[in-house]
């Protein structure tokens, strides 16, 4: 279904992005001179230690933070305009489902806000529940589901309104390794089926290498990009690819980038 030759349209374009917070202990350079191009259909992972700006960058794209310098365009508009046009879905580290709504009710929430008709809402809810393999769980309440299932519901919610871009901030961080592996596989399958552009923040090197077409290594103080790695791995990847030579080499390069970033600017 998905065309493997991806169209080289920049979807997210950042040039010399700067974000400085004024704190009691002096200014904090959360982002310094960050320039990056993300193309349509890319799966981009952001990896680095705490304070490197990876979450901050994602939040700038989402117009939840505003840079103090530089330019940022999303789909050719400013981030705020893109946000109002509902250009992206955001998945946080915690599922953040409303306990007073059923799973279906939670997925319906953004659709209600955006004004879809009731019939549209029902159709979309069913479709995305199947997409994340939670079909039949619509009537349950969040606390009746496991952590992994709640996070899947949260992803379904982000997919429900057909945004082209999916932004995910350490979505699997709170889950155990076995569930995480499974969700990683499912996420790749989802990406293949829907062709979305995905920005993914993570702490885990194997996760970053396994999932992405492009890995952005960042380091703190000030938050900046140390390396951008275009992954040579094929789009279609089974879990076993993690034991392959190519995988290990990329992971090694990521680790080197992290170590280099750690060495300077202390």
């Amino acid at each position, binding site marked *: 279904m998905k065309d493997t030759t991806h169209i080289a349209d920049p979807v997210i374009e950042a040039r010399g992005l700067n974000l400085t917070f004024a704190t009691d202990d002096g200014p904090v350079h959360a982002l310094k001179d960050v320039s990056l191009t993300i193309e349509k259909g890319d799966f981009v992972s952001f990896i680095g230690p705490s304070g490197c700006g990876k979450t901050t960058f994602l939040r700038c794209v*989402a*117009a*939840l933070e505003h840079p103090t310098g530089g330019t940022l365009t999303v789909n050719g508009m400013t981030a705020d305009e893109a*946000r*109002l*046009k*509902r250009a*992206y*879905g*955001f998945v*946080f580290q*915690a599922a*953040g489902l*409303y*306990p*007073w709504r059923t799973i279906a009710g939670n997925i319906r*929430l*953004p659709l*209600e*806000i*955006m004004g879809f008709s009731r019939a549209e809402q029902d159709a979309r809810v069913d479709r995305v529940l199947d997409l994340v393999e939670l079909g039949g769980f619509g009537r349950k*309440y969040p*606390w009746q589901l496991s952590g992994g299932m709640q996070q899947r519901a949260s992803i379904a919610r982000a997919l429900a*309104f057909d945004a082209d871009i999916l932004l995910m901030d350490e979505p699997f961080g709170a889950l155990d390794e076995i569930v995480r592996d499974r969700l990683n596989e499912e996420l790749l399958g989802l990406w293949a089926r829907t062709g979305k552009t995905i920005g993914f923040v993570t702490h885990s090197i194997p996760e970053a290498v396994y999932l992405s077409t492009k890995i952005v290594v960042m380091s703190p103080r000030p938050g900046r990009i140390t390396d951008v790695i275009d992954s040579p791995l094929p789009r279609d990847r089974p879990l076993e690819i993690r034991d392959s030579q190519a995988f290990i080499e990329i992971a090694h390069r990521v680790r080197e980038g992290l170590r280099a970033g750690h060495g300077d600017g202390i």
Partner: protein
Amino acid sequence: MIWIVAALAFWAAAWVANIRLANSGAVRTRAGRLAVPAIFGITVLVVWEGLVRGLGVPGVILPPPSVIWAKITTSLPTLWIDFLQTFVKGALSGFAIGCGAAVLTAIAIDRSQFLTRGLLPVGNFVAALPVVGIAPILVQWFGFDWQSKAAVVVAMVFFPVLVNMVAGLQASERMQRDLMATWGASYWQTLVKLRLPAAMPFLFNGLKIASTLALIGAIVAEFFGSPVMGMGFRISTEVGRLGLDMVWAEIAVAALAGSVFYGLIALTERAVTFWHPSQRTK
């Protein structure tokens, strides 16, 4: 003498029964859990009756439960009129107006971070004051009838509910509000779909406190001026005539009304905030 012995014997037996019950498997059932406090309550009544009769306590100091019950059954019409006047017209209407105004004020203030930050400390302080003291003033302004009683209730109920509602509106997490922003939701959409439901546990906390204050306010207000009916009125006049059995009868009605009111609010709370951890853990 025989009364005292019987009363103490009953007390001992009930105590043993309760200890047995409490440590047995019966408490896993609803009936078992209700039986223990029920036995305790009945024991109190029995001991009361026994000691009062046995020690020959004069009726003008403490009448026994049997006499109070007799008074209740013979005075139902009066008790009913008093109940309507004090509880329904005074306490309930004041409760409704006061809580409604507090919720609306909280929502109005919520738009200004500045005012909200200033209001919480002031509101907490006023909520701790003996507001009941303005009852005489309000009777002066609003007259003798139920309106002044409702006014006292409004004054007593407003700040506790306001403070709880403001706290409730602040309760939704930053992440939830960020999520709303990513969907381009307007202020009103965020208010209705996220912040109001999230505020409900706090609101009901305030409503439960308000329910106890409402009845107190209505009764106290009646001490300062009332048409010839109402629980407060009846209590103060009967105390003057040393008709303590009627006083206790009125107190019994007030206790019943207060408990039922509180219970109804607790039931509504369970229905509305069924999702809250405190309602789910047993």
